Each structure stands twice: as structure tokens, then as C-alpha cells.
């Protein structure tokens, strides 16, 4: 039991040390701007199709479900309001982050894990490069920069998906949908919707890099690291969204 706890506590300590060093490197030289832009392309542009798809269908599904529930109170006209609030506050950030976690935390863990087991990380250190500076910090910056932007896109596409259902299936007037959607939003909702993906970005990038850099045992170890990265970052997203929501609701 003591051994079990010791291993877990050591892992948490290592994770925080990695996070601290990665953050410190943001202001430390050298800066690898090319790597940051490359990661932004991989994480941001690369995730765009999947984020748009998920955003659209989640908005459409929300509109259908909400309209059915609202019909009991004769308030189908409020569909736009509910779709928008749910998407901007909760579903947009969570679903986008889960997609990016599945796509990029796994990518980071497998890429860094492969580098670790083939001694490329050791080679990097031996040849004068800090792997955290070169590999972790650019991924962290890129995820923090692109995830809120991806969330904004997912939110908008989701609201558009809700409008498609409202207009073509529920026969609501466009102006009614967009007016209720627009008026429903408060600054606090937008702030909540943007803070969440920014915080989730830390969880995704650091978890992916942490498990990658700690991969051991050849290709099997890389596979294990990849799975752990996706599972842990997904759980962290739900855990963090609960706390952030709690703060905003309070």
C-alpha cells in the first residue's frame, strides 16, 4: 500500500515539476518559434475538421432535444437561447477539448514516447538541447493558443447547427432564433467559455507530454503511454470543468 502511494505521489510530483519547467521556459531562451507554429498547425488547423463536425452535430442534437422539452411548456421559441447557453458555457469547451485530447494528447504521448524509447530524448540532451524547452513548451503554448480559438469556432458552428434544425425542422423564424441566442449571452458566459479551454489546454498538453516523456518498455510502453494520456487528460477535463463551473455558478 505504501509503495502504491509512493509511486502515485512521485508521479504527481514529476508532473508538477514538468509543468513548472515548461512554464518557466516560456520566458527563457532559446525560444523555438518554428516549433510553436508547427504545433499550432498540427493542433489548431489539424483539429479544425473534427471540431467543426462535432460542433455542428452537438448544436443540432441540442436543438432537437431542447425543442422537445420546451414544447411541453409552449416555449419552443427559446430553443436558440438554450442551445447557445449550453454550448458556450459547457458543451463547446468540453467537447472541443475532448476531441483535441483524443487527437493531440495521444499524438504528443506517442511521438514523445517513441523518441524516448529510441533514445532521441537522451540524444537531444547530450547534444545541447533541453527536451522540455524544445518539445514540451512549444506544445503547451500552441495548445493554449489554439484551443480557445477552436472552441469559439465549435460554439459558432454549433449555434449554426441549432439554427439549421430550428429553421428547417422546427419551422422557427431565423430572427427569433438568432435574437434569443444573442440576448441569452452574458459576458460571464463568454468568459467562462474561454477560460475553460485555456485551462484544459494545460491539462491536454502537459498530460500528453508527461506520459510520452515517461514512456518505458519499447513499443508496448508507447502504446500504454498513449492510452494513459487520453484517459487522464479526458478525466482531468471533466474534473476541471466541474470546478470552473462551480466558481462561475457561485
Amino acid at each position, binding site marked *: 500500500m505504501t509503495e502504491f502511494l509512493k509511486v502515485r505521489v512521485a508521479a504527481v510530483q514529476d508532473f508538477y515539476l514538468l509543468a513548472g519547467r515548461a512554464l518557466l521556459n516560456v520566458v527563457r531562451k532559446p525560444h523555438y518559434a518554428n516549433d510553436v507554429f508547427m504545433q499550432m498547425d498540427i493542433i489548431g488547423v489539424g483539429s479544425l475538421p473534427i471540431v467543426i463536425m462535432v460542433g455542428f452535430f452537438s448544436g443540432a442534437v441540442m436543438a432537437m432535444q431542447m425543442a422537445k422539452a420546451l414544447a411541453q411548456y409552449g416555449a419552443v421559441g427559446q430553443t436558440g437561447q438554450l442551445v447557445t447557453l449550453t454550448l458556450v458555457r459547457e458543451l463547446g469547451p468540453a467537447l472541443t477539448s475532448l476531441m483535441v485530447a483524443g487527437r493531440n494528447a495521444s499524438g504528443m504521448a506517442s511521438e514523445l514516447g*517513441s*523518441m524516448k*524509447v*529510441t*533514445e*532521441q530524448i*537522451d*540524444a*537531444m*540532451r*547530450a*547534444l*545541447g*538541447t*533541453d527536451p522540455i524547452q524544445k518539445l514540451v513548451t512549444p506544445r503547451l503554448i500552441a495548445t493554449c493558443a489554439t484551443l480557445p480559438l477552436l472552441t469559439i469556432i465549435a460554439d459558432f458552428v454549433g449555434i449554426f447547427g441549432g439554427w439549421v434544425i430550428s429553421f428547417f425542422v422546427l419551422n422557427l423564424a431565423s430572427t427569433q432564433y438568432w435574437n434569443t441566442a444573442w440576448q441569452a449571452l452574458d459576458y460571464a458566459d463568454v468568459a467562462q467559455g474561454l477560460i475553460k479551454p485555456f485551462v484544459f489546454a494545460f491539462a491536454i498538453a502537459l498530460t500528453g507530454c508527461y506520459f510520452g516523456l515517461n514512456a518505458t518498455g519499447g513499443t508496448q510502453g508507447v502504446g500504454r503511454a498513449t492510452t494513459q494520456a487520453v484517459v487522464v487528460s479526458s478525466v482531468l477535463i471533466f474534473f476541471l470543468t466541474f470546478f470552473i463551473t462551480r466558481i462561475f455558478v457561485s
Partner: protein
Amino acid sequence: MSDDQSQPVLRFERVTVRFDEYKALDEVSFAVEAGESLVIFGAAGGGKTVLLKTALGLLRPDGGRVYVFGQDITDLREQELFGIRRDIGVLFQEGGLFDSLTIEENVSYPLENLAGFDCTPEEMHQRAEEALRFVELEHTLEKFPSELSGGMRRRVGIARAVVTEPRLVLYDSPTAGLDPITAYTIIALVAKQRDLKNTTTVMATHRYQDGHFLATSRYNRETGQIEQLGEREGGNGARTTFMVLHEGRLAFQGTLAELKASADPYLTKFVKRED
């Protein structure tokens, strides 16, 4: 940074490295003088790689002290170690070539990243080409590691290890998993680098014939050929020491002749089987 030329190039003082309860190195002590070759024999899991990584500062010992070029590196921070690593070349067991970089970028990587070289892109290209010519792979500049065979990747690894003209070169199982002809090519390159540049060489291997070759051969600058010296007095054999690691402990330390003469059951089995 202190750099005492009279000090051994590499010195371990009762170094212990632990992974949880397992001792990968157990109170290992040795020293390598400038221009000497040290061959470290040992079976898989014997601690060879751990020893080399500890010498590079990639692993921190749990006990004892490590001195490189006379400087105690045991407690140095990563950034401080970069200055020491500037003078150390290393060939990793897995090659350690960067998959996403071309061969030229791989070889010029230390020139670009290690402090103090300040090479222009033209100089880096020139030096990378020169290092690749040394391993007879100058035609692979634009290729990626995945396009090369295992032996070629190992040769590129040697080119990258020597491109900075280091004073100390560490080779981790340079011939592991290679066919006998390619293994000969690799070990001949190790000897060539040592004798051309008078580099201090530390080579970990599980193959007895690699160490034997290093101790009994010399690269002749005039003929450009490797020649056999035998084990005669004054040959490379006198400047090559051998160590045998057995489960992290130093089982033997001495010359080739002493190793051959040893009656220790483990050493006898090791030497006789591989000879």
C-alpha cells in the same frame, strides 16, 4: 569551468545508480586517461548503458562522484552540463537519430545547438559533409534516417558523435544487432577516429571481438588502412584497458592479457565464448 589537463578525462569514484531497489551500478570506480581506450564488457542488463549515461550526466548517481575532464559533474544542473557535453561525442545503442530531420540536419545538430560553436550555415554544411565523408556516407545528406539501413544509421551516429571533434567519445554497443561485415566496418571506424584524432574512447559492448580488435589494431594515416598490431608491447594494447561489469558490479579491470589470463569463472565464460 575548471579543466585540468593532468586529470583523467573520465573518473568514477564509487558510483552507485539505483532504479528503485535495483542497483544498476554498484560502487563502480575507474579512470580513463587522455588518449586511452576503455572497453566495457558485460551481458545485457549489466549496467553498460547506465554507466555511459551517467558519464554524460544524463543519469544522476545515487552515490559516489563522477569527474569529467577533471570537473565534478555529479551535482551540476542540466544547463551547466551542456558546457561539458560540448567536448563529449556519443553514439547511442539505438542510434538516437532524429526521425524528423535529414541526415545533414542530424549530423549538424550538435554544431547548431551546443554552445560555443557559432557556425554559419555554410560551415555547418561543410563540417557535416566532412563528418559524413569520414564514415563514407557523404551521399546521404538529403536522406532521412528511415531511408537508411541499420548499419548506415549507426555510421551516421558516429558522424554526429565526432562532428564537433570531441576529446572523449562514448560508444554504446556500436555493433549490436549488426552482421559481421557491417560490425567490422563500424569497429574499424571507431579505431580510425581514435587514431586520427587521438580521441579518448570509451566503448561498451557485449562482443569480445570488438574490444580485442580495438586493442590490437591501429589506423595507419599514411596507408589509410587498419593494420593489426597483435598484442605486442607498445601497441594499442598497452593503451587499452578493459572492464567487465556483472550485474552492476565491476567484475574485472585490467589489460587484454590480464583478461585472457583471468581464472574467474564468469570472465572465462565470457571471453572464451566470444573469442
